[in-house]
């Protein structure tokens, strides 16, 4: 039988033939097929192997509830594991293969497990593999891990990109079956903004699965016509191939849209909806009986779907097993299209027969099946207990229906049990969103109920949203009757009866779990792995619950409910990332000097989001150290410059700016005169150091605060908090101007020479007129506005010059021109770091959020006479321990011994034990100025230990050296250079 014999169907285009490959073999299907339908049409029944016992498995369903039909989809440059054949839209050249089987699908080595199933039932591993302990990682676990797992991951080289987006609407309709269509149509008529999403690649849901027999013709006509109208409505956005994966807080839904003809592969939408309707229909239940997992055993309504939607009738002898009327519809449809229906095995004693052509085995059950790789036949047992064999190659099973309620549980609302249909329906009072379920998703299974419940719900919603609905028409539809008689599983027999096909959870497993006191639903799930597979228990959870209920002689709602969590269907992680991967993981921030630095051979380093010049290597230089030493020497001996624009710059203005700043810093600012800069120490309210920097008073009410690069954002937020939340009465304006100004540090004995060459004549930068810690608004190069601060991070005579960002490039080039005779040298962050260590300035490693002013030897700075953030709690006992660690300098006993940052410090005679731990090295470098390695460290009682020798222990790198404790300021401790 080939895929070419199909009875006619509107959902496939038999003119458009599609070639595809499955497990290396070529097949043909049609436009409109899924991989599953095409395989079934080609008579392929064996598709996969199960997770634990590697049992042969075939397709049982026709949607995302499929537990068996998982394949690996093979693309040019990557593979998609665990893909459900039932959801793959067939395309030309599609290639797929089975997973979890070796050497082949037919002969799978691991199916040995099946033989030992007795010994590896639920939770067996918790009770063994314990002896000897060392064997777990070495032997048992590797074996288990090798056996476990389904598909394989591959490097993803997908050229087609993922994007993300955000949509808003009044009403989100999830699902385009009968209820969804009516909902979207009526809401659309009212003018409301509607989004209609459909997981499938065609709209219509169940409409595509049924024949329009007399009872349904009217309804189907109507539904097809409104579908056409909806498509034309400008206020209705129809999105197919779009699956809502979850409902989140405040009416936000996550939805994944697949695009097949676009450079964009998929878009992950967040949809903010005022109201939402769940029109996701219902999922057919399976019935556990002995060996109910053979290829050829399917869900009854899915068979009907393959017949009606995909025109597949290549079944030989079909038997159906049911506890409700739906199976008879499947039977009739099959018979009408020429398939031999062996009969319907009905658990009910006297079911109403609709179709005289159907042979009925009433009050009977299927108790076992035969056939290895494919179904050959079944044993049934009638009321009297008489067992007989029936030959068949397809067995359709239906245990009734579960409303597809998963999404309604995502915000933590538990479903409720509906006795009438013996199934769970969505819980009410869904506080955090306004989701309503209608139609089958709400347990209203018949077409007439679907349409009427949708109408009712939409009218309520439109009323709430104040949309008026003009007149509309809905035809009256004759009600049907499903008449279900709860039947959960076949008692007969001791062989395995599968509840969860993918994870190989059987009735027996549930019995064992119960026996061992795993009686809460959650215990059951976790112990047996029931419903933990990629199908998320869509076909198994409720059945498992029912079995647990019958074991504990309780009603199902008494036993508990199963709460579903997002996502509704598994989604690949790249969907949730969109554009933000690789280099785009985080945006890159460039400094004003970036282009110049690039042209001048800088190498760059990440510093937060920034890229900063690390150093400017010259051709002949041996290594980075040579370069950095040169840069440092240049500054110490003549002059160099460095882009420090990444420091946070906050413009503080207003009448009360000064008193505000005085509350922010713990040291006094009240007396800061115009034209002066001051170092400020910022504490958190808990009294520990938050950040440090300088603040300059440019004019009466205008201040410029600088923060460290890392804390720029958090300090700004902190200031806004202090202003808006603590002291709103103050007249202060805060503006972050980090991007507007390029700030260039010009440092070294010759820096004043350089400044004099560019500053406009009317300004005087002599030491007298512009002393250490002076600042001013100036102009340079004939009128370029600029700001000059005489501050120094390096300890040399130094300035920081700010110009509007767009002048940075040109200014730097100009500095290089005029600085030739001083051999002006650009330096990077590394040299900057070396010089600040030489000068004993605290930076990131010292301001690590756990250090107090005392630790930094700055406790005298904290003014107790004023209100400032952190002052009060900085007085706590713990922040004034007698043996508190203090910032110190370290000189290695042998100058060429490196002192590695992160090493811990011990007294010479002490053992390396926690109780002897005296502190740690925070920053270290080679100091070309001291001609030695040096370091900064926190050391207990540090300030009293200058001159002492200590042990610098680094067991991690198996290093130990000795160093002498000293003043952290290595260069110019008296600060003369700064002032001359």
């Amino acid at each position: 039988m080939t895929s070419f014999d199909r009875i006619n169907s509107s959902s496939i285009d038999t003119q458009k033939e599609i070639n595809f490959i499955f497990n290396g073999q070529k097949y043909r299907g049609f436009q409109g097929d899924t991989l599953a339908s095409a395989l079934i049409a080609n008579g392929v029944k064996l598709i996969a192997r199960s997770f634990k016992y590697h049992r042969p498995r075939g397709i049982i369903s026709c949607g995302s509830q499929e537990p068996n039909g998982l394949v690996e989809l093979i693309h040019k440059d990557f593979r998609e594991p665990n893909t459900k054949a039932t959801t793959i839209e067939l395309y030309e050249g599609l290639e797929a293969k089975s997973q979890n089987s070796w050497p082949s699908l037919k002969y799978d080595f691991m199916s040995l497990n099946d033989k030992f199933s007795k010994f590896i039932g639920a939770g067996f591993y918790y009770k063994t593999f314990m002896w000897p302990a060392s064997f777990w990682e070495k032997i048992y676990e590797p074996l288990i891990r090798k056996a476990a797992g389904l598909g394989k991951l591959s490097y993803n080289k997908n050229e087609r990109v993922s994007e993300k987006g955000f949509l808003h609407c009044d009403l989100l309709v999830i699902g385009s079956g009968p209820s969804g269509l009516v909902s979207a149509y009526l809401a659309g008529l009212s003018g409301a903004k509607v989004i209609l999403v459909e997981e499938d690649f065609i709209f219509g849901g169940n409409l595509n699965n049924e024949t329009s027999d007399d009872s349904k013709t009217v309804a189907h006509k109507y539904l097809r016509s409104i579908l056409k109208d909806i498509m034309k409505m400008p206020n209705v956005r129809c999105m197919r191939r779009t699956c809502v994966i979850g409902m989140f807080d405040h009416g936000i839904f996550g939805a994944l849209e697949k695009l097949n003809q676009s450079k964009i592969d998929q878009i992950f939408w967040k949809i903010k909806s005022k109201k939402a309707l769940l029109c996701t229909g219902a999922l057919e239940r399976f019935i556990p009986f002995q060996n109910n997992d053979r290829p050829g055993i399917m869900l009854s309504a899915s068979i009907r779907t393959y017949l009606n939607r995909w025109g597949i009738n290549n079944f030989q002898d079909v038997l159906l097993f049911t506890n409700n009327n739906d199976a008879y519809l499947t039977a009739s449809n099959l018979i009408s299209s020429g398939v031999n229906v062996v009969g319907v095995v009905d658990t009910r004693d006297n079911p109403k027969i609709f179709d005289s052509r159907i042979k009925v085995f009433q009050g009977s059950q299927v108790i076992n099946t035969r056939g290895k790789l494919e179904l050959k036949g079944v044993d049934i047992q009638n009321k009297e207990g008489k067992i007989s064999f029936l030959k068949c190659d397809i067995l359709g099973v239906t245990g009734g229906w579960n409303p597809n309620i998963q999404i309604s549980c995502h915000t933590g609302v538990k479903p409720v049990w509906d006795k009438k249909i013996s199934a769970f329906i969505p819980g009410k009072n869904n506080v955090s969103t306004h989701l309503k379920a209608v139609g089958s998703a709400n347990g209203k299974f018949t077409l007439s109920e679907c349409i009427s419940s949708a109408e009712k719900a939409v009218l309520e919603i439109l009323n709430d949203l104040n949309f008026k609905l003009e007149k509309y028409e809905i035809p009256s539809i004759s009600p049907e009757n499903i008449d279900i008689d709860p039947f959960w599983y076949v008692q007969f027999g001791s062989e395995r009866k599968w509840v969860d096909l993918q994870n190989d959870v059987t009735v027996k497993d549930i019995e064992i779990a119960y026996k061992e006191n795993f009686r809460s639903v959650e215990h059951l799930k976790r112990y047996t792995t029931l419903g933990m597979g990629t199908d998320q228990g869509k076909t198994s959870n409720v059945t498992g619950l029912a079995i647990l209920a019958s074991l504990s002689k309780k009603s199902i709602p008494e036993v508990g409910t199963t709460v579903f969590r997002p996502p509704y269907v598994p989604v690949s992680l790249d969907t949730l990332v969109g554009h933000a991967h690789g280099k785009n993981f985080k945006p890159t921030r460039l400094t004003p000097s970036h282009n110049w630095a690039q042209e001048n051979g800088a190498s760059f380093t990440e510093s937060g989001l920034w890229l900063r010049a690390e150093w400017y290597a010259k051709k002949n230089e041996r290594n980075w150290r040579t370069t950095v030493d040169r840069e440092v020497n240049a500054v110490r001996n003549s002059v160099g410059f460095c882009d420090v624009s990444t420091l946070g710059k906050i413009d503080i203005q207003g009448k009360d700016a000064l008193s505000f700043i005085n509350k922010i810093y713990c040291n006094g600012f009240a007396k800061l005169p115009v034209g002066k800069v001051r170092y400020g120490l910022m504490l958190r309210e808990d009294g520990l150091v938050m950040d440090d920097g300088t603040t300059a008073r440019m004019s009466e009410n205008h201040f410029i605060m600088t923060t460290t690069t890392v804390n720029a954002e958090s300090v700004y937020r902190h200031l806004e908090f202090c202003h808006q939340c603590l002291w709103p009465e103050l007249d202060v304006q805060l503006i972050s101007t980090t991007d507007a100004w390029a700030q260039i540090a010009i440092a070294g004995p010759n820096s004043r020479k350089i400044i004099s060459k560019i500053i406009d004549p009317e300004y005087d930068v002599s030491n007298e007129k512009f002393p250490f810690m002076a600042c001013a608004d100036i102009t340079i190069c004939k009128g370029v506005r600029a700001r000059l601060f005489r501050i120094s991070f390096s300890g040399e005579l130094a300035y920081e010059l700010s110009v509007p960002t767009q002048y940075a490039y040109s200014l730097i080039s100009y500095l290089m021109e005029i600085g030739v005779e001083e051999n002006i040298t650009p330096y990077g962050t590394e040299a900057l770091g070396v010089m600040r260590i030489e000068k004993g300035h605290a930076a990131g490693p010292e301001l690590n959020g756990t250090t107090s002013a005392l630790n930094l030897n700055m406790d005298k700075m904290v003014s107790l006479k004023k209100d400032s953030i952190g002052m009060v709690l900085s007085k706590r006992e713990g922040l004034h321990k007698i043996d508190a660690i203090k910032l110190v300098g370290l000189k290695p006993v042998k100058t060429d011994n490196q002192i590695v940052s992160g090493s811990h410090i011990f007294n010479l005679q002490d053992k390396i034990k926690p109780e002897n731990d005296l502190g740690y090295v925070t920053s270290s470098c080679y100091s070309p100025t001291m001609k030695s390695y040096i370091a900064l460290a926190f050391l207990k009682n540090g300030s009293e230990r200058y001159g002492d020798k200590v042990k610098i222990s680094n067991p991690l790198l198996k290093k130990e050296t000795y160093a002498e404790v000293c003043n952290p300021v290595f260069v110019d401790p008296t600060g003369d250079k700064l002032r001359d």
Partner: protein
Amino acid sequence: MIKNFLKPNLYRSEVLMVNDKLKLTLDNSRNIFSLNENKDETNKFNRIFKKFFGFSVPEIAKFKLNDNSIALWSRTKSYIILTDSNLDDLTSTFDGLASITDQTGGWLSFKISGKGSIHLFEKLITINLENFNEGNVIRTSIGKINCFVFCKKKGETYYIICPVSFSNAMRSRLIQLIELS
């Protein structure tokens, strides 16, 4: 006007990218300032503002413009001004009424026009574009970059103003997305 011999990088107006649906232009001819009203000066500030710019203070989340200037509401009593006037004009005018901060060169503005713009912004920002009308401005983030977005003509012309340090990142993001649409 400055007649110095340092050359600012001028990002005037250049077209960065065009296709049948969208056009991306860099549009930077003006000085940029933030203007922050001082405490308890509202009435006087509003009066002077109207006199100086020729339009009244923009309401919350709105912007005003004429041939010389655009004024964006950025936060309560705070505005971003793109204008031909220079710092001295502003300081002299608003002396004591407002704090002025020169941001020229600190921000870069991208113009996005074309019928594809709605579908572009769906993928860039989270607000409801249905209600984002001509004359509206928001401060938000695009791909983790803080920026202003304003609507000159609904569904047609929008502007993104972004910090200069992020402008390369923003630029490549916009170009990439336009290429896809």
